[in-house]
């Protein structure tokens, strides 16, 4: 019987509830939408990554190295091929491609392929034989857009290195390396033999040599990869960036490609859900306030506390379910919108699919969060004594429910913790996030207590009545200062922290490419071409110094080999094993600053390239970038041995430099003193400050004609790409911030509305006693101004700190605080608070007090 009463009561009242507070369920809908959409988006991406990875590797396992395979490695691969595993070979290389006359030159990704390439995907070609003709050599193919950009058609020829090849057709459906495509541009395909003949595979050309294995169904690709690694480990050959990768690893790496984005979206969804929860709490509070007389009557009629509590909990769940359903719809829209919105950011393409699991997750979490956050305001329902139906001044016995409050508080904390762990994907991160939020709540509560204590002291009888009345509303019995200030502050905190994080990410993305930045970046200039290139640049009025680049790896630090250091684990492995592109120079690069030690004497700078001999027969002097020095745990006087293409070069650190990596110029970790790397194989890079488009195009044509192996990037094109990518992410960040702001304001509105009933009754009595509308307005304005101003300021301040902490520690980015925007958020919050406060007094001020008193007693 009782059970059915609870349900029927819940169903009857939920209709009213939906009408009264349904709009606030939008807050939970926003949270559920963010969660569902993101979850489905990630599932789509993971599925996409799995299918893309195999195509990208061109098989199930890929061996890749930065230099040509030696006889040992060739033998290993041959033996694998002999065991029945087909192997296709390819070489990928960034290089200039242009029309025959050198016009339309662009840096593109050249891929030399054999007839077996690609294992994993089926290329589509127009005309149909365009791809098959590649195998025979003597032709070149690219996708339609690239051909259009190069302004060539089928049958026209393209210049690649020293070769001129006719275009066989347009091809699509081929794996594209997203990392390279972002910087270099789309791929152009030609036969492996043609690429080798084009004279482009020079020192420092950044070519990638690849062998892709198509592992038969009855063998495990992981076993094959392991076997390969073992065999390669036994070889006595030296490779730069040698890797053996399976399609599964590649899929994981692809997914990592948008980890920062995922992380931010996860954080946004968490915050949106929390906001939704706080919004629900405010809305339920508002709803319960309205229902109290009715609840008291039900109690008089014999309804038990627990019956009423359960019925209202059920109502909350029903309302939450309504919000969650709307949220799932939002989520599906988000899931379908994100891939289009982020087209140039995503490392690979994928299509949205039907994700029932994400929908169920959204619904469950939505209802769960609603119920969890509704518990606190619903405790009020348990405290309504039946006597309240007869006497409006009767207070509920709140003392009895202290244990219930503790219990609910605990449940809420655990719920939030679980949600945080789920969204951040780590127990530690989740706990830190929850701990941070609890701390924020405590600080806000403390500020509220301080405010209540503080204003009591300053309020003397000499303060005008209306102001005194308004201010004292903050600490009088029945005040809502603590609840309102905490909820308001928390809303402000969440809004502004997300705002700070998204604006920090935006700043990071908006790479400053000022108008006078160099327009042409040249690389792969060989030592014997240097004078010619510099002369050519000078002829075009773009005099530019070229910098030598000498690839080298660390061999030992203070006499300890890098492998031993890597095993110790104190120095990050990648800093020990990576290839450093070092230079030598007599002069300190502009933008660099010596932080410790001294730069070498200027006399070395006179002949920086051929260089005077090192200062003595001992180790050569180097200047190291300060951050790298910290990571390598070295300082002034530390001895570092480099492996410069097989030759050991012993160095001593004589200075540490701070490098401004944001300056668009060649920057280096290690600078050697002049003369110290003499004879080492070097290529040269440089920047040409050429802004005039006409001259730039002419220079490009000349460069391609005279030095076909020299590559260059037209930075104005890159600038457009960067702007497009950062524009998309910025829009996404802005969108998420907007969701948070919308959710936050809903929360604030719900909180404020829930507090206005008491104020309305007080206003009505004051009105009856003869208070003017102006006096009432001042009273309400003062109280709500204090609440909004202080709660908003505390929340925004804490939000700025929280956002800065997330930027610094979770994203490891520099912190910038968008002061004016935060002030704007604060201002809007204050205005919102004020307007809700004012509207709460509005009916009293406008209508006759008789009517208001009548309805208040109703």
């Amino acid at each position, binding site marked *: 019987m009782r059970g059915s009463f609870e349900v029927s009561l819940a169903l009857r009242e939920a209709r009213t509830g939906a009408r009264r507070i349904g709009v606030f369920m939008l807050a939970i809908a926003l949270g559920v939408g963010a969660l569902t959409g993101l979850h489905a988006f990630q599932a789509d991406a993971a599925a996409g990554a799995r299918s893309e990875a195999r195509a990208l590797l061109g098989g199930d396992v890929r061996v890749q190295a930065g230099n040509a395979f030696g006889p040992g490695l060739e033998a290993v691969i041959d033996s694998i091929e002999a065991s029945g595993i087909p192997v296709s070979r390819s070489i990928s290389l960034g290089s200039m491609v242009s029309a025959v006359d050198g016009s339309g030159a662009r840096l593109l990704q050249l891929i030399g392929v054999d007839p077996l390439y690609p294992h994993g995907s089926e290329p589509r070609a127009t005309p149909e034989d365009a791809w098959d003709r590649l195998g025979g050599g003597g032709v070149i193919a690219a996708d339609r857009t690239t051909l259009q950009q190069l302004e060539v058609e089928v049958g026209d020829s393209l210049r690649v290195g020293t070769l001129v090849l006719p275009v066989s057709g347009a091809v699509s459906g081929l794996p594209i390396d997203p990392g390279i495509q972002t910087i270099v541009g789309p791929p152009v395909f030609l036969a492996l033999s043609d690429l080798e003949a084009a004279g482009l595979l020079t020192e420092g050309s950044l070519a990638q040599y690849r062998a892709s294995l198509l592992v038969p169904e009855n063998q495990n690709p992981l076993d094959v990869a392991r076997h390969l690694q073992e065999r390669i480990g036994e070889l006595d050959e030296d490779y730069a960036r040698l890797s053996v990768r399976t399609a599964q690893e590649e899929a994981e790496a692809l997914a990592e490609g948008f980890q920062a984005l995922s992380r931010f979206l996860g954080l946004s969804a968490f915050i949106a859900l929390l906001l939704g929860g706080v919004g629900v709490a405010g809305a339920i509070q508002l709803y319960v306030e309205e229902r109290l007389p009715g609840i008291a009557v039900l109690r008089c009629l014999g309804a038990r506390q627990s019956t009423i509590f359960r019925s209202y909990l059920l109502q909350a769940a029903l309302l939450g379910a309504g919000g969650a359903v709307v949220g799932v719809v939002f989520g599906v829209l988000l899931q379908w919108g994100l891939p289009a919105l982020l087209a140039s950011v995503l490392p690979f393409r994928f299509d949205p699919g039907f994700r029932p699991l994400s929908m169920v997750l959204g619904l469950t979490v939505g209802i769960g969060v609603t119920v969890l956050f509704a518990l606190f305001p619903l405790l009020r329902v348990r405290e309504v004594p039946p006597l309240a139906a007869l006497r*409006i*001044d009767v*207070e509920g016995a709140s003392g009895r429910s202290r244990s219930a409050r503790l219990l609910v508080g605990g449940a809420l904390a655990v719920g939030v913790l679980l949600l945080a762990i789920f969204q951040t994907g780590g127990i530690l991160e989740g706990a830190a996030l929850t701990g941070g939020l609890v701390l924020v709540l405590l600080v806000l509560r403390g500020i509220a207590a301080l405010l209540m204590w503080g204003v009591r002291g300053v309020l003397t*009888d*000499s*303060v*005008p*009545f209306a102001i005194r009345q308004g201010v004292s*509303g903050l600490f*009088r*019995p*029945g*005040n809502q200062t603590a609840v309102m200030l905490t909820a308001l502050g928390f809303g402000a905190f969440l809004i502004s922290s997300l705002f700070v994080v998204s604006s920090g990410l935006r700043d990071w993305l908006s790479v400053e490419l000022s108008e006078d930045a160099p327009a042409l970046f040249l690389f792969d200039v060989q030592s014997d071409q240097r004078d010619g290139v510099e002369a050519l640049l000078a002829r075009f009025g773009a005099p530019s110094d070229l910098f030598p680049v000498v690839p080298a790896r660390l061999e030992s630090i203070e006499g300890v080999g890098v492998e031993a250091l890597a095993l110790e684990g104190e120095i990050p492995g990648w800093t020990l094993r990576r290839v450093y592109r070092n230079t030598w120079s007599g002069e300190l690069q502009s933008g660099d600053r010596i932080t410790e030690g001294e730069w070498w004497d200027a006399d070395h700078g006179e002949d920086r390239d051929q260089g005077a001999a090192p200062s003595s027969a001992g180790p050569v002097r180097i200047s190291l970038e300060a951050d790298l020095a910290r990571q390598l745990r070295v300082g002034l006087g530390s001895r570092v041995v480099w492996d410069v293409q097989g030759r050991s070069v012993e160095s001593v650190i004589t200075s540490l430099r701070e490098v401004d990596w944001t300056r668009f110029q060649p920057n280096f970790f290690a600078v050697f003193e002049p003369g110290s790397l003499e004879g080492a194989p070097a290529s040269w890079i440089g920047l040409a400050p050429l802004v005039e488009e006409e001259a730039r195009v002419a220079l490009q044509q000349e460069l391609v004609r005279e030095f076909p192996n020299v590559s260059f990037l037209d930075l104005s094109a890159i600038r457009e790409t960067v702007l497009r990518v950062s524009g998309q992410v910025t829009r996404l960040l802005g969108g998420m911030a907007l969701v948070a702001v919308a959710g936050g304001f809903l929360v604030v509105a719900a909180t404020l509305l829930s507090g206005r009933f*008491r104020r309305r009754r*007080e206003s009505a*009595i*004051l*009105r*009856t*006693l*003869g*208070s*003017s*509308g102006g*006096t009432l307005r001042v009273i309400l304005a003062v109280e709500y101004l204090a609440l909004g101003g202080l709660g908003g300021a505390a929340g925004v301040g804490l939000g700025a700190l929280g956002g800065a902490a997330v930027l610094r520690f979770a994203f490891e980015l520099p912190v910038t605080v968008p002061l004016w925007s935060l002030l704007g958020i604060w201002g809007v919050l204050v205005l919102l608070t004020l307007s809700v406060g004012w509207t709460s007094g509005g009916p009293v001020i*406008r*209508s*006759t*007090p*008789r*009517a208001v*008193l009548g309805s208040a*007693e109703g």
Partner: protein
Amino acid sequence: MKIELQGVEKDFRIGGRTLPILRGIDLLIPEQSVVALVGPSGSGKTTLLGLMAGLDSPSRGRVLLGTTDITAATEEARALLRARHVGFVFQTFHLLPSLTARENVQVPLELHPDAPAGRSGGVRRRAEELLDRVGLGDRVDHYPAQLSGGERQRVALARAFSARPAILFADEPTGNLDRATGAGIVKLLEELNRETKTTLVLVTHDMELASRAARVYRMVDGTVRPDVAAATAGGGRGEG
């Protein structure tokens, strides 16, 4: 201050139908007189009181407080008039729950248009004197929730008289109290009224209370008639 009603009518619209509550009421309550309005529930007593106090506007007719026609006045003007000239005692007390007893009594003094700005020492003293006068001198800092029903009504009395109103409206002032407590409140009300020479309008269905007024009007079906029997039985008092 006299109260005058000329042809006052009041309708309510309920569910699309117009329901007449008060019909053609003409009434003159002389200055400093004590008048009781009696009648059964739903006869329109409280509605009439609301109109006389300027808490509501008549559908037709005029209401004058002293020489001021409040029918045409804006709500702002009526609020000013109430602050200056009118006091209230309600059946359900209507104390502000968040203010102490003293602060509740201070409110009309502070809302009074002639209240000296920024100097509330006198106001405070006056509130404390009044609370002392109603026997709550030791409860000045208590909140309504900490007081009994009788004590709350005594605070309400103190509040009603605090700004020395020319007219006091009392709507069932003993309706929520037991007989003994009610009697005490009535006694206090009469004493305070005598001291301040206020025009007192009592709305009640307690005939014993009504009989203490100089004039008794009975409300029947939205009209007002002098109730000679009640007035004679009580002997009448306070006629100015």
